[in-house]
Each structure stands twice: as structure tokens, then as C-alpha cells.
């Protein structure tokens, strides 16, 4: 088992009332699985993903990655988890505008203590996602689809156990959405474990397994 989520709950206070953004979510995924969580905007899917990645603290519940509880981690352990074990692709544009493509891809390598030079691997990842010719370009010179590919290459630089993508096609056109999902599909074929959230059913069609999020609760697709 790669990931196990048990009784995950997140309660927010809005004004004087409390509401559950995530309500007792339980699910698990194995290695090499390609899972999508589908739901309408505001259903809680991004919150769930952020809790799994350790970006939001849950009100209760547990998240086990390779059998290790991630929610009790201190800042250093949690940061290492995000850096080495999880490749997180945030929603929207998240590459750094002052760095060129290759530096954006190499960046996570330098955020933990490592030896060696990630340049060669960064180039091969850029080749893998089909934009090696843009290695020295800056984000302002890239299209939305190209930027998403940089995100994916960056998320893969430290060979994570789990790739998490939050609405990876959120602001892409139909053709670019298809190309991006084909890329995820081929990564999955190569053995990557992928968990993504989307509000587009046609995106989830690429995944081998789909979970549905509704009002903070998670359901397995029949």
C-alpha cells in the first residue's frame, strides 16, 4: 500500500458557524495506480489533496505514506516528505518567473541535502515531457501547456513515490488538456503512482480509478 487515508476531516469556521470541508474521508491507493478525484468546485477535493501533501493540517484523521504517518511530522520531516517522497503539481501557474525552465526543474533537488548535479536528469525529464528545446527559456516565453509540462518535470526531479496534481488541466484548452493527460497516462504506464483532482469528467477518463468528492465526502465510482 502506498497511501492510506483514514477518517480525514477538516472543519472550518465561517462567521459563527462551523462546517466540514472534508468529512471522514477514507481511501487508499497502491503503487503504480493512477487515481483521480472528481468533484464540483468547492466539494473539498483540493483541500483533501493539500492535506495529503501536508500543506493543510487536518482537524482529525491520519495519512499514511508507505505505512508512515505523515501528519505527526515536524517541519523538517514534512518538508523532506514533500521534497523527496511527493511530487506536487499545484493548481495554476507555479513556476518561478525569475528562473529559466531548467533551473525551475532543478530547484527541488537543491532544497534538501543531496550531492551531485541534477542537470542531466532535468534535461532528460524535459525531453520526456517534450520541451527540452525550451530549457533556457523563461516562464514569460512559455504557453500554458508548456508551463504545465515544466511543473510535471519539476515534480519528477527527485523521483518521488507519489505524484499529486491539483487540477492539472484547469486553465488549459482542449488540445493541451489532451496532450497533458496523455503525458500523465504514459508516466503511469512507466510505473508512476499518480493522484490528481479535477472537475472535468473527460480528464478523469484517463485515470484507471476514479473517486468522487461531494460535500466533503468521498465515494468510489461504481
Amino acid at each position, binding site marked *: 500500500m502506498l497511501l492510506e487515508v483514514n477518517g480525514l476531516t477538516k472543519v472550518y469556521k465561517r462567521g459563527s458557524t462551523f462546517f466540514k470541508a472534508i468529512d471522514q474521508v477514507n481511501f487508499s491507493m497502491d503503487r503504480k495506480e493512477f487515481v483521480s478525484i472528481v468533484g464540483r468546485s468547492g466539494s473539498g477535493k483540493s483541500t483533501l489533496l*493539500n492535506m495529503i*501533501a501536508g*500543506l*493543510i*493540517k487536518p482537524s482529525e484523521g491520519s495519512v499514511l505514506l508507505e505505512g508512515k504517518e505523515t501528519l505527526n511530522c515536524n*517541519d*523538517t520531516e514534512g*518538508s*523532506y*516528505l*514533500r*521534497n*523527496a517522497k511527493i511530487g*506536487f503539481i*499545484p493548481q*495554476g501557474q*507555479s*513556476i*518561478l518567473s525569475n528562473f529559466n525552465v531548467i533551473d525551475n526543474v532543478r*530547484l*527541488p533537488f537543491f*532544497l*534538501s541535502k543531496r550531492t551531485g548535479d541534477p542537470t542531466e536528469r532535468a534535461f532528460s525529464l524535459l525531453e520526456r515531457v517534450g520541451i527540452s528545446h525550451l530549457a533556457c527559456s523563461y516562464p514569460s516565453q512559455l504557453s500554458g501547456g508548456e508551463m504545465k509540462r515544466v511543473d510535471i518535470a*519539476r515534480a519528477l526531479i527527485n523521483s518521488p513515490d507519489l505524484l499529486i496534481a491539483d487540477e492539472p488541466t484547469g486553465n488549459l484548452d482542449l488540445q493541451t488538456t489532451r496532450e497533458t493527460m496523455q503525458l500523465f497516462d504514459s508516466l503511469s504506464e512507466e510505473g508512476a503512482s499518480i493522484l490528481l483532482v479535477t472537475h472535468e469528467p473527460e480528464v478523469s477518463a484517463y485515470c484507471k480509478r476514479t473517486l468522487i468528492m461531494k460535500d466533503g465526502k468521498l465515494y468510489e465510482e461504481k
Partner: protein
Amino acid sequence: MIVPDGNKTDIEGALLRGEPGAFYFEKKTEDIISGVEGVSKISSQFFISSLSTGCCSFPIQLIGYDPKTDFVIAPWISRQLKGKLEDGQLVVGSQIDAAAGGALKFFGHKYRVVTKIEETGMGFDTSVFMNYATARQILDSARQIGVRFKFEGSDLISAVMIKTDRGVEPADLGDKILDRLELEGIKADVVIPQNITSSAAESIRKFIIYIRIFSVTLWLLALILLTVVFTFSIHERKKEIAVLRILGATRKKLLQLIFGEAAMISAGGAISGVLLAGVVIFLYNTYIGMKLGMPYMLPQPEIIALIAAASLLLTFGIGPVASSYSAYTIGRNEIHVTMREGE
């Protein structure tokens, strides 16, 4: 020191700030003073003001003294001048552009410079010393080429230096001398060097207090301004910071980045500031001294180095201190909140 009536401020200006003065009374004044009870030693000096010479871009004070009776100048310059100051020889202040062995030209005649005295920060730096004979020679050459002086006659002196007998109060003796001179129809002023130096010291003390208040105010203003700048800058870069956190940067790493960046900015400012200050102070040293209107000299090189090091350190510290508030606020929020706020 006794000077002609109304020239108290002139002699102070000449001694402290190097403002040339030309005031005279008759030589017989010296003889009258020597007869007053309580006077131990007496020696007169003769001042000529030179408006321009080839050596300097500022007016200089020529001071003639009598080597036979002098107890003020000779002991002071004895460290640099071995032997007696002969006729036609000059001793020059530190700011006079002439070296030992060289010559200075006054009113068409050249005079040999035998030594240059160390910097004092006072009027002596822009003064030229000579014996009475040389001073009279310069005065005569000036008259020969048509320079007119307010005072005619050859038996003139500018100031009488007095050493009191042991136990005699300078102020009491001064009153006695003034009374005696008045009886002879000579009006004069008493100048007690101790009073001049203590008043100068008081001015310097006040000036230093202003400089310190100004420096502290400037430092605090810079701190406030940089705090605002860093806060805005961090606010603008919330998304970038959130991305770094998502990619696995620890809080400690982020703080290192923020403080490191602030320290680099401060270091750049500190180094360029100290270099600029150094260039201005060394290039305009004389001009600053003249404009300050008080005794002024550059400190020893080791003191300058110490001041530069302290300034560097204080300025260098301002960036990290100013960025600490924004660094603190960054660590407080959940990463996804920071990401959202940055979008």
C-alpha cells in the same frame, strides 16, 4: 595672551580655525607688561595675513616670533626643527603645500622651508612660522611693491604671550595688566588659551552630540523604511515562497533565504556607503575643516578603520533586522493560504 582691544575673536579665529588676522599695537606694550608683578616670562608675536601665495588655495597666517624670548612656538616645533630658526627660514603648517627643503614666495621674495609640522587640526595647520627678522623682511617687501597696511611703523607686535609666576591666577594677572596698560593709554584684551580650548571643546562636544542624534535618527529611519520595503517585497512574493514550501523548503531554509537576501542588500549598501563616505571625506577633508569652523583633523588611520568597521557592521545588520518581521509573518500561515494570498 594680550592682544589689541577688540581683537579677542580674531585671535581665537586664528588659533582655532586658521582665519588669518592682522592686528597690532606698539612694541613698547611688551616692556610695560614685563614690569607687572606676577609675569614670569614674556614674548611677543607678529602676525601678517597673506591673501594668496602659490602654495595654497586659502589665505594663510604668517607668524613671526622672537627666538630669544619665545617659550611657546620653539618648544612645540622642536620635535621637527633641530637647532635655531635662522633669518629667511620658514616652518610651515601641515596644510601648506611646501616640503622641507623647498621654498615659498611672499611678495616677490623666496624663503626657504626648513620643516613642516605635524597636523594639529587647528589654525596652525594653515600658518607659517618665522623669526621676527624674516617677518619684518616680508612686511618691507610687501610695502615696497605697494601693499598698504592699516598700521604703519616698524615697531609693531600683534600679541604678547605671558607665562605667569607660580601660583598667580591668569585672570587676576590679566586684569592687573589691563589696568596698567590703560594707565599708559593702551587698550587691550586678555585671552586665556585655556578658555579658548574649553570653549572649542564644548563646541566639539555639542557637534558630536548632534552628529550622533542625526546618525541614530538616520539609522532608525532606514530601519523603518527597509522594514516597510521588505514587508511589501515579501507580500509580493508570497506565491514564490509558497511554491518553495510546496517543493520542500523548510521554514529554516526560507528564513536563511530571506535573511541572506537582506544581508546581501545591506552589505552592498554598507560597502558602497562607506566607500562613498571615504571618498568624500578624504577628497574634501580641507574644505570640510574650513566649513566646520572649529578645530578639525582626520583621526588616526586605525581609528578611521574602526569607525568604518563599526559603520559597516551597523549598516550590514539593518537588513536582517528589518526583514525579521516579514520573515516572522511568513512562517505563521499555512502553506496553501500563503499560496492563495499570493495569487
